[in-house]
């Protein structure tokens, strides 16, 4: 079996992966670093991020305010030590990207410009018009080209982590071009594979967002954290699910129901004013806005379309010039995909699955409990996002924790021996599994797309914006049956050359695992917090659930949920208040320091 070996191996070449690769290369230029990605790095989903990246940079702002907005936005499920590190390093990372050439939008005097964003009390979101992720990713990709120690494996699909004696020592991957299945060993592996939006039928996420890294980690024995927290972004285009950035509201857009009424005023989000007000109305947090949509729908105050109910995003009053300067991509997407012009028309929007707060459990340096395995970006859960991520925190998260994981993993590599050949036996077994289960299999009758569609339906029905025990329990049954039927899947394509059907099958296998983890965690958390709303347990319950869910895979393939404490440093759990009347603690209460002894460490089921 072909084998190649490196010191450090990254899976995924998006924002977090490329940042991690550069950070590792800068620890020691002699380290051999491999970036293994199923797409060319500039195709990674970071490219689709639109609105911006938060980092305190203006004199009227402070790190504590960014931390408070993030923690209250996350409904107190964030680990506050991680948040404090995050807000401190975010501006430095964003400036580093500026030094590498990122074309940030500017003030007239040449300084970085910032814009408002949902749930943020100060303007602190850096942006590159409304293609922020695109510019960040291309800047990072182009910058990596000057680092010789970074070897890219473009269009290689990772199927398994190699683990021996409790330590991760590489991966098995398929080179799509040739179909070659080989082992790539390394002293440490960083997962930077992004989220899993494609587990749901209606998502902003690209086709490649299948939770690969989450499933790989979980199968290898690392726990997933807070998987029940799935973010619905309030403004997606119907049918396609294409994102209309929150920046559209930050720049002054209104959300209107079918009567042309700014309905958010009915949901404890403040009173409408002509200009955007921070942490109010359309600039409330995403979980609350998406929940308000469902309530409007229940009151029959939304509009019906062939692709579900919608409300309207109104940008018309902003005028063509502002739209062209600040939101050119929004206009382009509306014109191209919806055949409407936001300068003159209302934009139909509905909540759409956007982001996974949960992920592979890591500490503040990206380390998972499994030696040699790190994770950063959306695939990881540090957690700085808690029960609801604030818009514009995910791009700096990729940078801050990408860099931290890259550095920590590089140091791990310097201190550890090279992987031994024993893992190659596992790699051979994995190759046999792939051949037996898919390529050389005879019989089978299930189509990938059928199982995928049924899975998406089951997850949306049970683990959507509102959840309840009965539907979640039903979904566990459905997903179990789908897992079984997946064993009976049939491929039309047995070719070795660029076999995208084999890839789709393996991605479906990952998604089935991730779907089950979401439903299991949602079932176990009998409270409502942030993006996890249980109609049968409508209140937040800090006594029982100020705690992270940790999902483990048992040796027999079943899953179990345990809980771990939330780290509280300076902001004790409080009420989330949005709207004009909110009291906003500008200084953190030092006397509030406490360890989260409130949180039970126990098993749920």
């Amino acid at each position: 079996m072909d084998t190649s070996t490196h010191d450090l191996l990254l899976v995924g070449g998006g924002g977090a992966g490329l940042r991690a690769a550069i950070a590792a290369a800068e620890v020691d230029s002699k380290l051999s670093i491999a970036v293994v990605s199923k797409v060319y790095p500039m195709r990674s989903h970071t490219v689709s991020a639109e609105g911006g990246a938060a980092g305190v940079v203006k004199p009227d702002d402070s790190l504590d305010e960014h931390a408070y907005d993030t923690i209250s936005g996350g409904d107190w499920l964030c680990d506050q030590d991680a948040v404090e590190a995050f807000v401190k390093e975010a501006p430095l990372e964003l400036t580093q990207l500026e030094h590498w050439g990122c074309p940030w939008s500017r003030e007239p005097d040449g300084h970085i410009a910032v814009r408002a964003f949902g749930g943020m009390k100060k303007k602190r979101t850096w942006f590159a018009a409304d293609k922020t992720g695109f510019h960040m990713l291309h800047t990072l990709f182009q910058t990596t080209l000057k680092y010789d120690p970074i070897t890219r494996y473009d269009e290689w699909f990772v199927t398994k982590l190699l683990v021996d004696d409790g330590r991760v020592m590489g991966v098995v991957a398929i080179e799509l071009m040739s179909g070659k299945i080989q082992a790539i060993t390394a002293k440490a592996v960083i997962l930077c594979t992004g989220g899993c939006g494609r587990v749901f039928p209606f998502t902003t996420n690209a086709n490649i967002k299948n939770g690969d890294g989450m499933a790989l980690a979980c199968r290898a024995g690392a726990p997933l954290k807070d998987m029940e927290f799935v973010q619905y972004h309030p403004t997606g285009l119907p049918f396609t699910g294409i994102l209309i950035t929150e920046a559209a509201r930050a720049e002054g857009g209104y959300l209107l129901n079918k009567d042309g009424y700014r309905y958010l005023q009915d949901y404890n989000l403040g009173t409408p004013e002509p200009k955007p007000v921070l942490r109010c109305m359309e600039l409330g947090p995403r979980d609350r806005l998406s929940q308000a949509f469902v309530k409007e729908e229940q009151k029959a105050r939304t509009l019906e379309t062939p692709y579900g109910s919608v409300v309207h995003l109104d940008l018309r009053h902003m005028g063509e010039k502002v739209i062209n300067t600040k939101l050119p991509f929004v206009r382009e997407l509306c014109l191209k995909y919806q055949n409407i012009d936001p300068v003159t028309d209302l934009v139909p929007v509905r909540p759409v699955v956007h982001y996974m707060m949960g992920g592979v459990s890591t500490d503040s340096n990206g380390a998972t409990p499994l030696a040699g395995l790190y994770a950063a970006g959306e695939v990881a859960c540090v957690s700085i996002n808690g029960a609801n991520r604030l818009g514009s925190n995910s791009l700096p998260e990729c940078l801050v924790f990408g860099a931290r994981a890259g550095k920590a993993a590089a140091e791990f590599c310097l201190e550890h021996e090279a992987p031994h050949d024993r893992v190659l036996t596992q790699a051979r077994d994995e190759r046999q599994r792939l051949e037996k289960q898919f390529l050389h299999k005879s019989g089978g009758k299930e189509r990938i797309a059928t199982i995928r569609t049924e899975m998406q339906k089951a997850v949306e029905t049970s683990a959507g914006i509102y959840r309840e025990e009965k539907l979640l329990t039903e979904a566990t049954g459905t997903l179990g049956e789908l897992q079984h039927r997946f064993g009976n899947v049939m491929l039309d394509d047995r070719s070795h050359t660029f076999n995208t059907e084999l890839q789709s099958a393996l991605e479906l296998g990952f998604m089935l695992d991730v779907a089950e983890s979401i439903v299991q965690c949602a079932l176990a958390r009998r409270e409502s917090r942030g993006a996890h709303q249980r109609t049968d347990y409508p209140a937040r319950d800090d006594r029982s659930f100020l705690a992270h869910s940790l999902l483990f895979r048992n040796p027999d393939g079943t899953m179990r949920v345990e809980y771990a404490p939330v780290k509280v440093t300076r902001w004790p759990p409080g009420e989330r208040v949005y709207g004009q009347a909110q009291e906003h603690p500008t200084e953190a209460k030092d006397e509030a320091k406490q360890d989260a002894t409130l949180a039970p460490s126990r098993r749920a089921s």
Partner: protein
Amino acid sequence: MGETIILEVARYSPERDAEPTLQTYEVPFRKEWVILDALNHVKDQMDGSLTYRWSCRMGICGSCGMMVNGEPRLSCATFLSSYAGNGNKVRVEPLRYFPVVRDLVTEVSDFLGKLKTVKPWLIPQEEPPLTQEFLQTPEQLEDYKQFAMCINCTLCYSACPVVGLDPKFVGPAAIALAQRYNKDSRDRGAEERTAVLAHPDGIWGCTFVGECTRVCPKHVDPAGAIQQYKVKAALEWVKKLVMPWGDKDRQTKTEDVHNAAA
């Protein structure tokens, strides 16, 4: 307008075929469908072996370029309805001038190699500390911004007759990317990039047909970049003849950066 539309798709597998053939699929015609939706319908429901790349389906990742009725297009941004009148038939083939890996998938590693040769990263004279950004006015940003919009979809290579004739030509996107950094007020690397661009396979290969600019889905103007660079290169050559002692312009730019970092 019919209820269905005929997709003619180029099929090729190196393990099986000596050369590509066209395969026909009849798919539902829906007004909100783009070419990519039709291909996904085929792959999901009819033939799982159909092979193509796609990801973001919103015209920004650059994966899904194909020839659609002979024109290089992003298949996620090209509506079926544009072809409904045309005998209800649309032909989809891999991007021209690239080696074909399989079906609609082309080999792009040569393109990526060319991108790297133009040193597409910021080469500043001096980097300020991490607590400080380079100053850059909105006007200075505007100078290079359009060249920074390239999504590396390679449609311009498929449109460029010079690429078709001379595979060594560095090509429109790579030249535009070089200009993106050359024109960035923070950058001082233009001279280093000249070696590649002034080479016969660089800008001088371009015969200014302008097809690259016409097909660009992101309104980048590679043809403009090439022309700008030709003029600049010619001027540099003249300057070297008349001012062998040095380049005054360059010294001025250096002073600017010191002011900016202050």
